[in-house]
């Protein structure tokens, strides 16, 4: 009985949708959580919270979570960008999983270009924001990790 339950659990975990949740939804939510809890309230997203009537809840959460200063800068500022690149790359890998060819590379490459290009654009001053080398490195690593891990997980899920 226990073996059957374990087997069922494994087959459920290997469902393609779970791969999507693990590689796209969770990283996106984690990035959003970091923004919500530990970033400046002058960000546009806080206006959206205001419009949605969530400001009170957001401030309650921010008062409960540890102070932003207890967290390393890379966690607050670089990790959300890296998670964005990871989940975006994973999305493209998911969409183009059963296809191959130039378009798959174009779309996946577009994600990397957006993530890395944004950082490079900040460095040369054409994109607003502050260039940080840690951001750049984490974005590249996140893109590579997603491009490696997502197809692998999907293959296992569909096997």
């Amino acid at each position: 009985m226990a073996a059957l339950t374990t087997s069922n659990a494994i087959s459920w975990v290997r469902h393609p949708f779970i791969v999507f949740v693990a590689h796209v939804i969770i990283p996106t939510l984690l990035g959003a959580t970091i923004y919500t809890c530990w970033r400046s309230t002058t960000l546009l997203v806080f206006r959206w919270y205001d419009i949605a009537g969530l400001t009170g809840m957001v401030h309650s959460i921010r008062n409960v979570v540890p102070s932003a200063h207890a967290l390393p800068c890379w966690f607050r500022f670089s990790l959300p960008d890296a998670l964005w690149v990871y989940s975006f790359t994973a999305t493209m890998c998911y969409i183009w999983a059963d296809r191959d060819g130039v378009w798959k590379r174009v779309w996946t490459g577009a994600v990397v270009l957006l993530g890395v290009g944004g950082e490079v654009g900040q460095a040369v001053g054409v994109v607003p924001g502050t260039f940080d080398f840690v951001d750049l490195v984490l974005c590249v690593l996140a893109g590579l990790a997603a491009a490696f891990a997502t197809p692998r997980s999907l293959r296992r899920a569909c096997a």
Partner: protein
Amino acid sequence: MRNLKPHILSLIALVIFIFLAVGSQDTNRSGSSDQTSSSTASPKSQSSPPEAPRQARQLSPEERARVSYAKLYQAAYKKLGRPISVQATGERYDVMELSSALITEGSHTLDAARSDTVECSECMQIIKKLGFKTLTIRGTNFDESWDVAHSHF
């Protein structure tokens, strides 16, 4: 049609993720993100063009203009050739307002809820060079007392 499906899905994903990226833009600084430079920030980011003096000149005395730690940090570095660090502990500071002075000295901590004002001559020198008269550091929750400290390095 089947060949178009992944392109359509990719376009939808592109729109959603760009929408998420737009949410991270700062409403106070014409589209820049709120990323602050820290003591670990790269020299390249520190040498970015300073925005704080330009903002200060555009402000009327009545305006309570805000400037980020990052901008102040970068501007101070550019002007003085060395960084300053302003840290608030026990609260999320995030925003600096140009109004009254609440600058702490050395490792001294200040309970802002008591409206103590301690001036640090070095910080005031920096702030004046940046075109500001005074500087307020504040948290997002005024109900709580919170400590403000700064250090020079």
